[in-house]
């Protein structure tokens, strides 16, 4: 094998040396033959004649030997490449335009494919990830709802669909100790077997066993590789050591390896990737008959051959059993089992595929464009091709030669494109929203490389084949007679080239319409009234450790003191604390409250989102008060229970009624006044996400009455809110020096993150549309300019016969319109039929939006006009004298 390679390599690269050797060898042979014949008595001349006769065709034999050496194919290719390079260098503008347009389109394709590969194609980083599935509850109102721990335990004990099943819930912790400032860590409480479900093993130690789930055994922790390295110097003896979390000693029992990725979550979400710092054992206690609180997320590994559907049916059956056993009402609720892959990337799939489609269209246009330019060039190369055909080159050789040239172009474009993709992918990833799934998996990787090579080769063949076949059909006689100037392109070729430009125009219109839809979507989202004011607003989060803040009074006191000192800071308009910030992901609901004077229909529990807030919270967030009052300092423990609700809740439960003074109760059987909570204010609605259909009903408790320890701080400032961050830290540490201030960011950034996906989609589709228009314009220009140059004589004749400049310009523009109008019509029809594909990506605009469609038509006609300006000018300068001289 190796000797074979060496032999072929020598034959290929030392071709002339090998040929000379053969020549010498053959000469040697002939000499011997001559001597032999002379020995038998022939004259030398006769002997030579005989020898040569016996030897057969010298040239033919050399060819045969070359073939026997097995290098003919490569040698020819090398020859074609050399020749092709010479041809391309002879016309550098042509080569440059071709290579640049191909590089841009191939590069864009590689970049988008990198994203597709990283997000959609790469396997999730778990063992047999296709068997993993997420488990949720589901109702018409709440498509994905967390589980109740008791339900989870019953699912785990009774199911036969999963080989293992686990639950997890977000719970950040504060790490302190040593001399450094306390930090908040991303933490998750997990049941035992969580990592076994995922198929991950700790690099040190072990994962939690069942004993860790028993309340009181929870002071154990598993560290992430990153935390272990950055905070504990990769201490190999860390197992068994104690670290201080939430001011309590936790024993390290394991360290996960690097690459331990979070499987994603909806409830109090953390970003994908290696975003978790610590895992602690999830445990809970309580009454198994009270199953109203839902806050854990289920994940399971399906048994071999069990589908998600079957598992879902089984869990639903178990849920019915549970309902019977515990007398609970599950009307309207069912279990949802979603394969992990769908859960992680399902929502982004459509967007990515649309982007791939868009960028594929760009590549198609680039191909049409390249074929077009090649055909124009082939007709000017007719003479050269005629000569080669006349010299006896077989047609296949000419086709092969021309294809080699297009492959040189496409592969050079591909290499440049790959370089572009490297930069483009980095830019793309930096523009992706923080919560984009698997963004950390997006790289220009092996598959991307293979994709680029394949696309480059296919592109070269796609755009090169038709022009090559056409050119090889040149009649050498005609080609030579025509002396290369007034070539007869032939009706068929002219038709083909126009068809290509019409197709380019059509596809470009499709992209332009898409870009228009994305722009409208983005603008609609940006201009939506969010229900709060995101400017001049700094936010942060605090989590009071239970060890120090044992009573509600202590918690309420802390937030009271903090609010007071923050509001006293210079430059602060208002500052408050709330359990949740808008648009940061929220899914907590409470159900089953009783409305005074109303009887709920059976199976129709009253539901609403619940939050806590301090008096200044609403003013700081910029949420308007519609009726009644905000909370005051007086709304504290011991005072009558008060509630603030949003308009959605008022409209849902008290339509057309005065809601102030209305009362609800969370008690099953309210009797005394203190069982009731009174509505004292109504505030404006804030949707869960900017593009949510409607706001969910929600209410707020006074923080001073319910004392939630995990709160977000909101500070509204007069000037740039970034300046207040240090003031916030000082204020917190004056009250409690051991408290971490986490997630300090501008509400602007949070709001911005919400529109970053639509903005990115618009930017990319817009970019592709721009590229498409540029290519289509080049194509149109190429065809029109070519026709004009072909018709120079005709135009001269027309001028001689009395045609005005105006008439000539009109003729050229007419040709341009004959390309643009059918192209645009084609594009609009295509776009209308593709409308369904983008439906899920657009907001507040219809795929057949008349404004966008008409703007695109106008724009495309203008592009065609611009593309034909220069040729029209040239036509108008047609000189009858030139025509006469040419004849």
């Amino acid at each position, binding site marked *: 094998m190796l000797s074979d390679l060496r032999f072929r390599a020598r034959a290929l690269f030392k071709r002339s040396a090998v040929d000379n050797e053969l020549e010498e060898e053959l000469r040697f042979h002939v000499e011997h033959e001559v001597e032999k014949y002379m020995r038998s008595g022939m004259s030398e001349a006769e002997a030579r004649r005989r020898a040569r006769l*016996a*030897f057969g065709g010298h040239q033919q034999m050399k060819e045969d030997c070359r073939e026997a*050496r097995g290098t003919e194919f490569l040698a020819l290719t090398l020859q074609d490449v050399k020749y092709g390079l010479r041809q391309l260098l002879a016309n550098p503008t042509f080569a440059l335009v071709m290579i640049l347009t191909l590089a841009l389109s191939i590069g864009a394709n590689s970049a988008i494919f990198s994203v597709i590969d990283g997000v959609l194609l790469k396997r999730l980083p778990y063992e047999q990830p296709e068997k993993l599935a997420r488990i949720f509850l589901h109702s018409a109102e709440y498509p994905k709802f967390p589980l109740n721990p008791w339900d989870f335990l019953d699912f785990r004990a009774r199911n036969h669909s999963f080989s293992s099943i686990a639950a997890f819930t977000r719970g950040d912790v504060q790490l302190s100790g040593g001399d450094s400032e306390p930090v908040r860590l991303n933490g998750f409480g997990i049941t035992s077997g969580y990592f076994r479900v995922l198929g991950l093993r700790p690099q040190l130690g072990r994962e939690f066993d069942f004993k860790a789930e028993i309340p009181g055994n929870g002071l154990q922790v598993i560290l992430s590789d990153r935390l272990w390295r950055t905070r504990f110097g990769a201490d190999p003896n860390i197992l068994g050591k104690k670290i201080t979390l939430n001011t309590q000693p936790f024993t390290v029992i394991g360290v996960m390896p690097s690459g331990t990725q979070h499987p994603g979550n909806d409830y109090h979400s953390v970003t994908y990737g290696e975003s978790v710092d610590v895992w602690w054992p999830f445990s809970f206690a309580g009454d198994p008959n009270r199953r109203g609180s839902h806050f854990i997320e289920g994940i399971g590994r399906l048994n071999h051959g069990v589908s998600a559907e079957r598992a879902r049916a089984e869990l639903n059956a178990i849920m019915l059993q549970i309902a019977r056993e515990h007398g609970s009402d599950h009307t309207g609720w069912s279990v949802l089992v979603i394969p992990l892959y769908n859960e992680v990337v399902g929502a982004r799939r459509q967007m990515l595929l649309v982007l791939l489609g868009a960028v594929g269209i760009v590549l198609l246009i680039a191909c049409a464009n390249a074929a077009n330019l090649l055909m124009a060039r082939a007709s000017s190369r007719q003479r050269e091709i005629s000569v080669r055909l006349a010299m006896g080159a077989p047609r296949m050789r000419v086709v092969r030669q021309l294809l080699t040239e297009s492959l040189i172009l496409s592969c050079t474009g591909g290499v440049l494109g790959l370089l572009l993709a490297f930069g483009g992918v980095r830019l793309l990833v930096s523009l992706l929203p923080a919560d984009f799934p698997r963004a950390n998996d997006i790289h220009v990787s092996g598959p991307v490389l293979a994709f680029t090579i394949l696309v480059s080769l296919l592109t070269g063949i796609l755009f090169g084949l038709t022009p090559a076949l056409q050119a090889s059909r040149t009649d050498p006689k005609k080609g030579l007679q025509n002396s290369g100037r007034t070539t007869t392109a032939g009706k068929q070729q002219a038709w083909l080239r126009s068809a290509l430009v019409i197709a380019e125009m059509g596809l470009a219109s499709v992209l332009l319409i898409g870009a228009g839809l994305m722009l409208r979507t983005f603008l609609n989202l940006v201009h939506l009234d969010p229900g709060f004011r995101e400017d001049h607003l700094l936010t942060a989060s605090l989590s009071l450790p239970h060890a120090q803040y044992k009573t509600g009074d202590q918690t309420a006191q802390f937030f009271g003191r903090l609010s007071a000192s923050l509001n006293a800071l210079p430059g602060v308009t208002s500052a408050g604390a709330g359990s949740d910030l808008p648009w940061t992901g929220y899914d907590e609901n409470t159900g089953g409250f009783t409305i005074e004077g109303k009887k709920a229909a059976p199976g129709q529990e009253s539901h609403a989102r619940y939050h806590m807030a301090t008096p200044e919270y609403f003013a700081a967030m910029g949420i308007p008060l519609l009726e009644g009052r905000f909370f005051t300092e007086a709304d504290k423990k011991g005072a009558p229970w008060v509630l603030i609700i949003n308009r959605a809740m008022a409209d849902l439960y008290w339509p057309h009624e005065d809601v102030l003074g209305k009362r609800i109760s969370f008690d099953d059987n309210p009797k005394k006044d203190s069982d009731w909570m009174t509505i004292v204010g109504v505030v404006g609605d804030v949707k869960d996400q900017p593009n949510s259909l409607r706001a969910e009903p929600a209410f707020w408790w006074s923080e001073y009455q319910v004392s939630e320890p995990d709160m977000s701080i909101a500070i509204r400032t007069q000037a740039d809110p970034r300046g207040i961050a240090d003031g916030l830290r000082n204020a917190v540490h004056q009250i409690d020096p051991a408290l971490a201030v986490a997630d300090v960011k501008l509400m602007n950034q949070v709001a911005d993150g919400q529109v970053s996906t639509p903005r990115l989609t618009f930017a990319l589709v817009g970019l592709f549309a721009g590229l498409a228009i540029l290519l289509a314009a080049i194509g149109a220009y190429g065809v029109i300019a070519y026709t004009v140059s072909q018709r120079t004589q005709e135009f001269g004749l027309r001028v001689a016969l009395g045609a005005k400049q105006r008439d000539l310009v009109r003729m050229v523009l007419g040709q341009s319109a004959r390309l643009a109008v059918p192209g645009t019509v084609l594009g609009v029809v295509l776009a209308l039929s593709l409308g369904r594909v983008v439906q899920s990506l657009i907001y507040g605009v219809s795929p057949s939006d008349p404004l966008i469609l008409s703007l695109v038509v106008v724009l495309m006609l203008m592009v065609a006009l611009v593309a034909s300006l220069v040729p029209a000018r040239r036509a108008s300068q047609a000189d009858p004298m030139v025509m006469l001289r040419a004849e």
Partner: protein
Amino acid sequence: MERIELPQGTLDLLILRTLLSGAQHGWAISERVQQVSSEVLSIQQGSLYPALHRLERRGWIKAKWGTSENNRRAKYYELTKAGTTQLEHETETWRKLTAAVQQVLEGA
């Protein structure tokens, strides 16, 4: 004397067999085959050299430049180890083939 055209595929076998007795140049190989076969077999020169190049590419023979009996530069071919194995293999196949053909011719 009547000469017989070589059946397909036997040329390689003849070349390899000829080289078993030592390195030879192309002309000598063709002469030798002719002599040993009592002038019945003759190798067309037009197929000898392509065959030599093919065998060299497969690594069954290797070539080196040497000096001929009358002091001229000549390209000598010799069997490689792989070539010897191949020769044994092809000889065996040939024997079986001819024996089988013989059997059919006489028995049918």
